[in-house]
């Protein structure tokens, strides 16, 4: 059958093939800026030849396949590094906000508040009876407490925002996985006839967005569908089914076919991985350290303050810390289970303190009440001991100790020589109240009556003087005192060390900077890797207009030639028909 008919047929196939190829070129050009589009190539091949007249004749060309240009290895590497990069980007964003929280150049720098606070004690020691000095001290104490609380609140807001992001992230992931499952179904049914190139592109784009959220593993299976699992193997997409993630009370849960599993700790990459690391490792470290610092400041200041005396005695005082069990020993005992429930209970030791009582003209009522705290003393014991002292009444309400001097006759009292720390632990005659960075505030009693700020101490003769600055001096000296403070790691472990308050805080701020700088470096490096891989992928898969224009001309010429073939065959037929 290798007649002119074959020539015409070959010419027809040539025309069609070039036209198809032109279609592919047109599709490529149209998608030059489509994100995730892979360049398609028309694969043109020679048709199966046929034997005729002792020869084997070629039968022209045909379009064999429309191929999608992609490199699986690059695609997989890009996906994995995208996970890491997104995780680092989120960490970098939150850490740079964290840097702002601890910004030492701003007005609420804790470091400068500390300086102001200690200087206020110095100023008070220069003028112990000065009312202005006392007002400044109250103000700087309140500012210091406020700064602690502000930072703590900012850190709490991080948790809130991160949880919101993760909730939205889980929903986003569910949407993506259900779309992937849908595409799996379409691809399976469509690929019976050929390559579902554009659907595959769309699916790959979705996989890439998914890997921005968490670390995933992806396998292609026989029918062209993808199986997607989390980094640790929890299936997210299996053929045409998808399994959702849910975010409940701060935990990420996988809703598998046989019930839900908490997978929070297995997520290591993507935005979710970054958010989780910030929320569960980075923020807790700084929160813990701030609590540690605030707790130590409260205790050390209170402990010295509670041993001092103001410009006048007190007629009544109520503790700021509540005891949960008034029958429990105040000194912390490791062997019994019972606990007084006081925030600073582990600081109380066996010891004693004195209460001096003064009459309305400021004269000492002898002898001083000497109160002993031994290992079995409970709050109730303390109350009954003090109650037996002349002119003093003690009571407990809501776990807080109240001491009152005889009313009406103008008696007042003052504390001294506390070797047990029980006064500070109960919040009697203290400067701060609260136990950590969250609730540190000034003791209201001092704010109401500044004269109660204990700049001095009761002298051995039982009297106290307006110009005595010994307690204020001890408090000002706390600035350089080394105290035992725990440092935390990002894993939540702690090691105990000695440092001054400001030394500890400076170290904390420095570690925020170091962490942020190292995450930024890692992120910059990951960005370079992702960019390189993206470039590599694009150079394989994305459209080059120059190439398409060349192809356009190539196919155009081929088309013109095939058309010429038709007209030549036509002329040949005319010639044949004219032979009569």
């Amino acid at each position: 059958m290798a007649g002119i008919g074959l020539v015409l047929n070959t010419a027809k196939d040539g025309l069609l093939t070039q036209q198809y190829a032109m279609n592919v070129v047109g599709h490529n050009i149209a998608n030059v800026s489509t994100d995730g589009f892979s360049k398609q190539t028309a694969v043109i091949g020679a048709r199966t030849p046929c034997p005729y007249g002792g020869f084997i004749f070629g039968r022209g060309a045909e379009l064999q396949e429309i191929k999608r240009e992609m490199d699986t290895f690059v695609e997989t590497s890009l996906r994995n590094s995208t996970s890491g990069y997104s995780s680092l980007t989120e960490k970098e964003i939150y850490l740079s906000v964290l840097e702002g929280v601890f910004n030492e150049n701003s007005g609420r720098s804790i470091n400068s508040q500390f300086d102001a606070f200690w200087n206020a004690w110095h100023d008070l020691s220069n003028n112990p009876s000065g009312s202005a000095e006392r007002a400044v001290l109250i103000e700087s104490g309140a500012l210091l407490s406020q700064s602690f609380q502000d930072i703590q609140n900012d850190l709490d807001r991080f948790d809130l925002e991160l949880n919101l992001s993760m909730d939205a992230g889980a929903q986003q992931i569910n949407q993506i996985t259900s779309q992937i499952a849908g595409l799996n179904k379409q691809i399976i049914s469509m690929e019976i006839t050929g390559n579902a190139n554009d659907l595959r592109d769309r699916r790959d784009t979705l996989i890439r967005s998914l890997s921005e959220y968490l670390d995933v593993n992806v396998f292609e299976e026989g029918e062209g569908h993808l199986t997607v699992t989390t980094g640790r193997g929890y299936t997210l997409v299996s053929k045409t089914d998808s399994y959702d993630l849910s975010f409940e009370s701060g935990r990420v849960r996988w809703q598998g076919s046989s019930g839900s599993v908490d997978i929070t700790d297995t997520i290591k990459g993507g935005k979710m991985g970054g958010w989780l690391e910030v929320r569960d490792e980075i923020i807790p470290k700084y929160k813990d350290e701030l609590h540690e610092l605030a707790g130590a400041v409260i205790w050390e200041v209170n402990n010295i303050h509670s041993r001092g005396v103001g410009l006048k005695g007190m007629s009544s005082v109520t503790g700021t810390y509540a005891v949960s069990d008034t029958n429990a020993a105040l000194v912390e005992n490791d062997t019994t289970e019972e606990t007084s429930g006081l925030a600073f209970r582990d600081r109380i030791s066996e010891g004693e303190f004195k209460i001096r009582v003064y009459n309305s003209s400021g004269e000492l009522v002898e002898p001083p009440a000497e109160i002993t705290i031994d290992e079995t003393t409970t709050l109730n014991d303390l109350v009954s001991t003090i109650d037996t002292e002349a002119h003093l009444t003690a009571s407990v309400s809501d776990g807080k100790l109240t001491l009152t001097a005889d009313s009406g006759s103008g008696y007042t009292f003052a504390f001294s020589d506390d070797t047990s720390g029980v006064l500070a632990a109960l919040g009697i005659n203290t400067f701060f109240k609260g136990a950590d960075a969250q609730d540190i505030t000034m003791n209201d009693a001092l704010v109401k009556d500044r004269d109660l700020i204990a700049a001095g101490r009761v002298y051995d003769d039982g009297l106290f003087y307006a110009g005595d600055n010994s307690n204020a001096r001890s408090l000002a000296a706390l600035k350089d005192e080394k105290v035992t403070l725990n440092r935390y790691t990002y894993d939540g472990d702690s090691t105990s060390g000695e440092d001054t308050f400001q030394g500890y805080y400076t170290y904390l701020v420095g570690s925020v900077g170091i962490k942020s700088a190292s995450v930024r470096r890692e992120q910059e490096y990951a960005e370079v890797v992702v960019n390189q891989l993206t470039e590599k992928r694009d150079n394989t898969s994305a459209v080059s207009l120059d190439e398409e224009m060349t192809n356009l001309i190539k196919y155009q010429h081929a088309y013109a030639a095939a058309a010429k073939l038709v007209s030549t065959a036509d002329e040949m037929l005319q010639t044949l028909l004219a032979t009569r």
Partner: protein
Amino acid sequence: MRVSNKAVYDTVTQNLARTSDAMFRANQVVSTGKKINRLSDDPVGLVSVLGLRSSLEYIGQLERNITMGNSWLNMGETALTKVEDILSQAKALTIQMSSANVGEKERANSAEIAEGFLQQVLSLANTMVDGRYIFAGTNTDTAPFELETVNEDPDYRMVDYNGNGTEFSIEIAKDIHVGVGRDGESIFGSDDFAWADPNTGQNNIFKTLIDLKTALENNDVPSIQTTMGELDSQMDRIRGLIADTGSKLNRLDLKANIIQDLRLTYTDRKSELEDADITEAMMDLAAKELAYQAALNSSAKMMQMSLVDFI
């Protein structure tokens, strides 16, 4: 190698972003004048800067303490010098009045002068600085010395001390304190003063002056001569105290000088760590600007080229 259009555009975008970011940072250094604009810019340097800032605050506090100490000590020195002056006048009076040439009437008349001395010393002993008594120990808010009449007998008078024995002190360096106020009782004495100088019998300036007045009124020459001896030893003691105050003032001066030097050193060091070298920063900014311009230029040229234009 095949280069896709997307890769070209992406690379241009990334490069421009990177160079403009570098320019932005260089500009930040120039406009703030600081090398450390964020904690992560130089965490280690920042830690030192924070330490130095804190030290400078402390130094500022010490300067205030020293200024305050100076005013107390100066006031104390002035008061003691005046007391010494009065005591020497009193001594001159005793010498004059114990002379045999002086008669009973003249002695009686000069009793008022002795009373004047007493009142002046009393007022000097109650010297105040900023509303606080400097010779009261730490009981600074109550006048330390009070002249009292015993049993409503105008001839039986004594001076009470209301202060205490702890001298008021200030901090001039870590753990170093200087007493700037004084225990008035050990200077002037008082009636219930237990301590007495074994050589002269007693060291109560007020009692000496009261005794002098009484002796003059009573024309009691031997008593006048006794007070003369007492005044000598009291003047000696006051001179000792003036010298002591002077040496304390010297100590504060010395400390103030050291602090001034320290302030300079700390400020220098802090500036070195956190302040940008403006020349260097400007050069850096210029270099970054140039890089950005070059990137803009080449990118624009590259993006314009396409085969489409030639077909």
